[in-house]
């Protein structure tokens, strides 16, 4: 299976060389830090096909918190990854719009017939942001770091298949061969967001074991080098991180101008969502992303007073909110109360009745002001390639719910309270994180819906860590409204959720062996799809997983919020994505119009 890359033709290189030389001369003046002199004549830049923009300008972006680190090897939180995504580059990139893979630092790649060997050809003549050349040695080095057991990068899990690491070897200066221990369905998708590291900067620290301490926030800009569109310039604690244009970036536009257009990218730390909105309204920041439905409503309401704002609704995200019943084995935990309630939760008819009683359309309307998508299974409509569209999407039906419960032996007393077959009133709690406004609201609405069914439900708002502790450690909860986000639109990114032994198998964590026949069946299907290469076969397997999910309702999928963002109207080439880094996905091509404002895309 060969993939042809959209590389620059030789003729084009010649045509653009002049431009490169000129711009290089300018960079020599503007960026004296780059000690390396002449560019090689042989530089295989990637040419984008987006509209041509203007160079210059500063884009200001607000982050919910400070990034924890500037070290891509250790970054595990969204914020750090957002910042790092504009400082580093990967070999093969998942296009944030089409969600398909596309060449990045890799010019092209070949996958062997059994899917086990991926040979990558690198772009030649590329340079890190400090001017040092990038080649196969850096790639091999990077993977050595990511797979290092002592460092234990969060990325290591993605690069380990069935417990065995991927073998990486250098073929020549610009060719690297990856040998997978097993056939792996996601194949080249694993390379996405795996930042390539500069060997010349980090080799020493890998050797002396200090790599995990490198590139903290207080690192000197000259110590950090990457292949992304921007490079680190300064950090003011508690306030901002400033990035500047990387003059050695490996993309150019249709007219041959080297990207990125922006000369500066600043991240302000604005912890409070409302404060972020206010900063955006006041014009301090240029883009607001990710944006909540309430912010969207406020901006829409004040559209007349702020005409320079462009609002965007990209539709469903990959996040799914769900009602999770505690089905963990709590026999060893001394939780008799939970154990008693599990006789209800464990009954699929009970869960079906609950699902049937919930008014998902009301959740969409009341929680998200209509800017969300109701869910009847965990795959959201955003994941077009994988959603099983043949599954039914029944509307709320209290009658249906009552009938199911009646058939299961439940009854109602004179005041309409639901009683289980033994005559015990059905009452349980729904735990929810207080820090998530929408989820608290979902929980309260679900409480009302289930109240119509005679269930006595109490919503318990908990601080986020306290909630996680209960869900993942102590199992001391009845039900919870939670959300998970697939990192990628591919079933392999969900292995931990679906495998019964998985660490994110929330309703029943880390099962020693599948607790139910259908969980065993899902295990089998998921494992099979992971080692299948053909899309059609995988899709059939994954469709079946979704079908089993809907029949057995391990958790009750509720709603997926839409991806919303706002940008100033004078920004061009904003290419927002429904997965990380959202509005920053196309920041290497974003530019400011010189005069006047353009209409929204």
């Amino acid at each position, binding site marked *: 299976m060969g993939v042809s890359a959209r590389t620059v033709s030789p003729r084009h290189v010649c045509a653009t060389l002049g431009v490169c030389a000129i711009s290089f001369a300018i960079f020599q003046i503007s960026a004296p830090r780059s000690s390396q002199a002449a560019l090689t004549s042989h530089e295989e830049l990637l040419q984008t096909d987006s509209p041509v923009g203007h160079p210059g300008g500063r884009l200001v972006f607000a982050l919910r918190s400070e990034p924890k680190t500037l070290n891509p090897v250790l970054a595990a939180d969204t914020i750090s990854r957002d910042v790092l995504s504009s400082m580093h580059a990967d070999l093969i990139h998942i296009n944030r719009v089409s969600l398909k893979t596309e060449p990045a630092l890799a010019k092209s790649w070949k996958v062997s017939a059994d899917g086990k060997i991926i040979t990558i050809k690198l772009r030649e003549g590329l340079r890190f942001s400090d001017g040092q050349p990038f080649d196969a040695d850096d790639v091999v080095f990077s993977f050595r770091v990511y797979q290092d057991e002592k460092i234990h990068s969060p990325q290591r899990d993605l690069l380990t298949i069935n417990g065995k690491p991927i073998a990486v070897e250098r073929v020549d200066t610009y060719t690297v061969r990856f040998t997978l221990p097993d056939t792996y369905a996601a194949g080249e998708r694993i390379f996405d967001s795996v930042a390539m590291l500069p060997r010349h900067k980090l080799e020493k620290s890998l050797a002396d074991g200090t790599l995990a301490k490198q590139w903290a926030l207080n690192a000197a800009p000259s110590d950090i080098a990457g292949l992304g569109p921007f490079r680190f310039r300064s950090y003011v604690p508690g306030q901002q991180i400033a990035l500047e244009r990387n003059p050695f970036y490996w993309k150019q536009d249709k007219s041959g101008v080297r990207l990125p257009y922006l000369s500066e990218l600043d991240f302000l730390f604005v912890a409070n969502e409302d404060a972020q909105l206010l900063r955006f309204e006041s014009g301090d920041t240029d883009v607001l992303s990710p944006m909540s439905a309430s912010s969207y409503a406020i901006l829409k309401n004040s559209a007349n007073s702020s005409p320079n704002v462009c609002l965007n609704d990209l539709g469903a995200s990959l996040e799914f909110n769900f009602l999770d019943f505690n089905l963990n084995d709590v026999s060893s935990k001394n939780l008799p109360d939970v154990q008693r309630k599990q006789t209800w939760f464990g009954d699929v008819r009970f869960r079906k009745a609950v699902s049937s009683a919930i008014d998902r359309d009301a959740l969409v309307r009341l929680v998200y002001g209509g800017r969300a998508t109701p869910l009847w299974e965990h795959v959201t409509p955003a994941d077009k390639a994988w959603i099983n569209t043949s599954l039914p999407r029944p509307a709320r039906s209290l009658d249906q719910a009552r009938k199911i419960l009646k058939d299961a032996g439940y009854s109602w007393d004179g005041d309409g309270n639901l009683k289980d077959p033994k005559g015990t009133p059905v009452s349980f709690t729904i735990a929810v994180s207080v820090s998530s406004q929408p989820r608290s609201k979902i929980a*309260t609405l679900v409480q009302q819906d289930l109240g119509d069914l005679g269930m006595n439900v109490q*919503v318990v708002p908990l601080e986020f860590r306290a909630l996680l502790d209960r869900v993942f450690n102590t199992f001391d909860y009845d039900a919870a409204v939670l959300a998970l986000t697939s990192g990628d639109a591919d079933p392999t990114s969900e292995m931990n959720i679906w495998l019964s032994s998985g660490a994110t198998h929330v309703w029943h964590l880390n099962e020693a062996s599948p607790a139910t026949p259908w969980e065993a069946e899902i295990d089998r299907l998921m494992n099979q799809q992971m080692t299948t290469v053909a899309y059609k076969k995988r899709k059939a397997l994954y469709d079946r997983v979704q079908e089993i999910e809907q029949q057995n309702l391990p958790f009750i999928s509720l709603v997926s919020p839409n991806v919303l963002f706002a940008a100033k109207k004078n920004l061009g080439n904003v290419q927002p994505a429904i997965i990380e880094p959202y509005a920053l996905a196309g920041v290497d091509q974003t530019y400011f119009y010189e005069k006047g404002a353009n209409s929204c895309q």
Partner: protein
Amino acid sequence: MRHLSLLRISVAVIASFYLVAIAAEFFAPYGFAVSDREHTNCPPTRIHVVDESGHWHLRPFVYRYVELPGELESYQEVRSQRYPLEFFIQGAKYKFANILSGRRHLFGVASPASIFIFGTDEYGRDQLSRFIYGARISLIVGTLAAAVALFIGLGVGALCGTFGGWVDVVIMRFTELFMALPWLYLLLAVRAILPLRTSASVSLLILLSVVALVGWAKPARLFRGVILSAQELDFVVAASVIGGGKWYVFRRHVLPQTGSLLLTQAALLIPQFVIAEVTLSFLGLGVGEPIPSWGSILAPLARYESLALHWWLVLPVCAVVPLFFSYHEVTSILQRDDIPPMM
């Protein structure tokens, strides 16, 4: 005296708040948990006296509100039919204190129209009804917690002030320790230890004790200061010198000196403790949905959304100010009771 009439008015305001809280079922037009999903975030219902055709009506009336088609949470009056405001109207059935049951509400309108004097919240619940029911919890928590905190504070302050020496030092360091600790953690820990499901009365008790527990240290330090300086006063010294017992002197001469501080603190602590409940419910220590308290009613104000889109959420604040002001007036009138007017 002019003061006296003001005092009467203030006391009357406070008393009426308590009365309304006690008989919330009667005064509130709707139940606190009744949620009308067709009227979420609905602005206050306008009360008219002039109809479409310009006729005046002696009895005020309202129109029914409907959501504009295609626009969420934008409402429009349906002018075709008037719904007069009715007093002592038959409404939803309620049980008062589990004995008396009734259907009468102070005021209301016939369905399908509804009257939301304070507008509705994000679940379509009548804000005014929630405010009235919320008074129960908040008044109990506010007053009792303030009383407990002041009582402990006065006791500890007296202990320090009268004994002095190492007792004073130890207790004062202890209050400093108390004020310095990260209470958020204790609250998280308390929440973790408690069962997830707590009945409303248990939650109330927890609220009360947590607020009082955290709140006593500051008053204690203040009382100590006042008691210390009171002991230096000539007549107090004189009383001890002529052989007044320690307890006697304290009771007769020192304690009255703390009166002014006690009153000021009381008028300040009650509102502070009512507001403090916002934080506690944020940590899952409140009484929990759907039972209202002023803390939970005021909580949405901390969001920009309320300010920008739902201005009527501020109305409950306007309603509590008279109460807090009355508390303040009562205490301040008691303070200046015997002071001759200043020039």
